[in-house]
C-alpha cells in the first residue's frame, strides 16, 4: 500500500520472512532468509518474524526457526496447506499483513516464492524485487535497498520501493548466510487460523508427483562440465556425466562434439546453441573459439583442462590445468569422492 504520511510509515515495523516448508521439512533457504532478516532488523532496530504456512507445524520446527534467528514465529496450520496453493496462501498473507503491518517481507526465490510473492504484491499494491543478491537498509531514510542482477547479469541494479509498504523481496537459495543456530535464543509463537472462507477461487491440487532426479536444464545449471572434440566419442561424455553427477552439474558440449553425433544438440553451448550462466564451468578439451565463448563466458569461475595450454579457453580460464583429460578427470573424480567421504 502506498504510504500516506509519516504516521502511516511508522505504523509498519518488523522484518518478516516466509518459511519455505516442503513435505514438513524446513528448507535451508528459510534460515538464510532469517540470517539476512537479522541484519536488516539490527539496522532498523525491530524484530524478525518467520511466517509458517503448513499442514503441520511442530514445536521442533518453531524452535528451530527461533534458534535460527526468529524473534516471533507466526504459524497457520491447515490441511489445505499441505501442497502449495497460490490463492489460499495469498489470502492468508494478505490478512496477516493487514493485521500486523510488517515493514519488510522476504521470501525465497523458489517456484513457490516466485509465484506467491508477486500475487501478494499485486493484491497489496506493494513493491517486489525478485532474486536479490544483496539487501541493506539505507541509513538516511531506513528504506530497504534491494540489489539484483539485470540484463543477463551484466549489470547490478539497486531498487527501492520506499513509498509503499511492505517492502517485498525474494532471495535465491544459497545467496545469503544463515546464522549459527543458537538454542539459547527465545522467541514467541503466535498461532493464527487459516480461516478459509470457502473454496471458491481456490484451485484443487489433485496430487504431487516426485521425480527421482530432476535433471537440471543446462540454461539453469549452476555447474556445467562441458566437452569438445577432444572427448573423442560418446564414451568421453560418459566420463563427463560421471564428474557432473558427482558435483551436481549438467553436461554441456561444443558444436564439433554435437556435430559428430556424440551428444544431443540440447547440450550445445555457444552462438548456435544455448547461452548459460553457470557459477562453475569446467571446460574439457574445448579450445574456446569465439562461437563457443559467447555462450558461456559469463560463468562465475571457469576451469579449463587441455593438453594445449595456449588455447583461448586456457587463457580465459580462472584455473587452467595442462594435461591429458582422460588421466586428469578420473583422478579428479577420485579426489572429489575422497573429499566427500572425509566431509
Amino acid at each position, binding site marked *: 500500500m502506498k504510504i500516506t504520511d509519516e504516521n502511516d510509515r511508522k505504523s509498519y515495523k518488523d522484518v518478516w520472512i516466509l518459511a519455505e516448508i516442503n513435505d514438513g521439512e524446513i528448507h535451508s533457504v528459510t534460515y538464510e532468509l532469517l540470517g539476512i532478516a537479522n541484519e536488516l532488523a539490527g539496522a532498523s532496530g525491530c524484530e524478525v518474524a518467520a511466517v509458517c504456512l503448513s499442514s503441520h507445524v511442530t514445536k521442533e520446527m518453531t524452535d528451530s526457526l527461533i534458534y535460527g534467528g526468529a524473534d516471533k514465529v507466526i504459524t497457520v496450520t491447515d490441511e489445505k496447506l499441505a501442497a502449495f496453493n497460490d490463492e489460499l496462501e495469498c489470502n492468508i498473507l494478505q490478512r496477516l499483513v493487514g493485521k500486523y503491518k510488517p515493514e519488510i517481507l522476504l521470501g525465497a526465490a523458489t517456484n513457490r516464492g516466485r509465484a506467491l510473492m508477486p500475487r501478494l504484491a499485486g493484491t497489496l499494491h506493494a513493491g517486489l524485487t525478485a532474486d536479490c543478491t544483496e539487501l541493506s537498509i539505507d541509513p538516511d531514510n531506513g528504506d530497504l535497498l534491494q540489489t539484483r542482477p539485470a540484463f543477463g547479469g551484466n549489470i547490478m541494479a539497486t531498487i527501492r520501493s520506499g513509498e509503499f509498504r511492505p517492502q517485498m523481496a525474494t532471495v535465491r537459495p544459497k545467496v545469503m548466510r544463515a546464522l549459527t543456530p543458537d538454542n539459547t535464543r527465545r522467541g514467541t509463537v503466535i498461532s493464527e487460523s487459516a480461516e478459509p472462507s470457502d473454496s471458491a477461487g481456490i484451485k484443487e491440487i489433485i496430487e504431487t508427483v516426485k521425480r527421482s532426479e530432476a535433471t537440471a536444464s543446462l540454461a539453469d545449471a549452476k555447474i556445467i562440465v562441458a566437452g569438445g*572434440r577432444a572427448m573423442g566419442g560418446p564414451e568421453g561424455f560418459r566420463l563427463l556425466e560421471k564428474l557432473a553427477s558427482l558435483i551436481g552439474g549438467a553436461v554441456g558440449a561444443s558444436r564439433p562434439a554435437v556435430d559428430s*553425433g556424440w551428444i544431443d544438440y540440447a547440450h550445445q553451448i555457444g552462438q*548456435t*546453441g544455448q547461452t548459460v550462466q553457470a557459477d562453475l564451468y569446467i571446460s574439457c578439451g574445448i579450445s574456446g573459439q569465439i562461437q563457443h565463448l559467447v555462450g558461456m563466458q559469463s560463468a562465475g569461475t571457469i576451469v579449463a583442462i587441455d593438453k594445449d595450454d595456449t588455447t583461448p579457453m586456457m587463457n580465459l580460464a580462472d584455473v587452467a590445468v595442462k594435461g591429458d583429460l582422460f588421466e586428469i578427470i578420473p583422478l579428479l573424480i577420485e579426489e572429489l569422492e575422497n573429499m566427500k567421504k572425509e566431509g
Partner: protein
Amino acid sequence: MNTNHYGYHVEIIPPKQDSQKLEEDLQLFASKLTRVMGSGFTASITDNAMGLLAFQGHECIEELGIDVDPSKILIHLNTFHTKKDLDGILDSLKRLGITSILAISGDGSPRLPKLQPDDVGAVGTASVTSVELCAYVRKNYPEFTVGVAFNPYEPPEHEFEKLERKLAAGASFVITQPIIGQNDIIDRLIEKHPDLPVMIEAWMSKKLYLLSDVVGYPIPEDAEFDPLATLESLENTYPGSSFYLSLLGFKTQYETVEQMAAAKEARS
C-alpha cells in the same frame, strides 16, 4: 544434380522470418531465382543459414507461384526441423519436381527444433547429423540426389572419416567450405575420390573476415582480396570441379560471372 561444369551454383538466401519488408524481400528472392535459372546456373537455396530463421525455399516458390526449372534448383536441408516439417518439405519438393538436396547438420538456434534419432530411424547416435539425415532421405525418398558438405578446415582425419560415413549413407556429391586458393586437403579429397563430383565453394564477398567467422578458423587477412580474380584462379587450379558461389553480388558481380561461364563454355 546438374553436373554442368560451366554453370555455377549460386547461393540464394530466402527472406528472413523477421523481415520488416517481407513483400519486397520476396520479390527480390523471386527475381534472383529467375535470373540464376535464366543464366543456366543452379540456384542453391539455404535452410535457416547461421541459425537465422528464414522462410523455406519451397514455400517461397509455391506461395509466389514462381515458374521454376526444377533441375536448376538445389535445396539445402538441415537437421533443425521437426519430423513433420522435414517430411512436409520433402513432399513439397517432390511436388515441385525438385530432386537435388544438400544434407547438412546446419546451424541451430534455441528457436529451432532438432531432429531426434528416433525421427529418422537412427540407432547408436545421440544426435542427428548430416549422415543420419542423408540416410533418411535416401531410404524414404529414393528419388532425391543428396549432396553433403566437406570442411577442409576441420582436422582432416575426422573429416575424411565422416565423409566415408556420408557416402555410405548415400551421398553422391560434395560441396566444400569456401577456399581462397589451392588447398592440400581438397587435393587429397579429389585424389581419393576421383569419381565423386566435388563442388568447390568460392567466397564472393570482399569481406574475407566474414569467411573466417563462417568456418570458425582464422584465415590470413588479405587486404586486397579480389573474389572474381580468386574464382578465376581457383577454376584454373581445379579444372575438373564445378563452383558454388556464396554471397555473390547480383548488382556488382553477376554479369562478370555470367561472362566467365560463357567464355569457359566457348573454350571447351
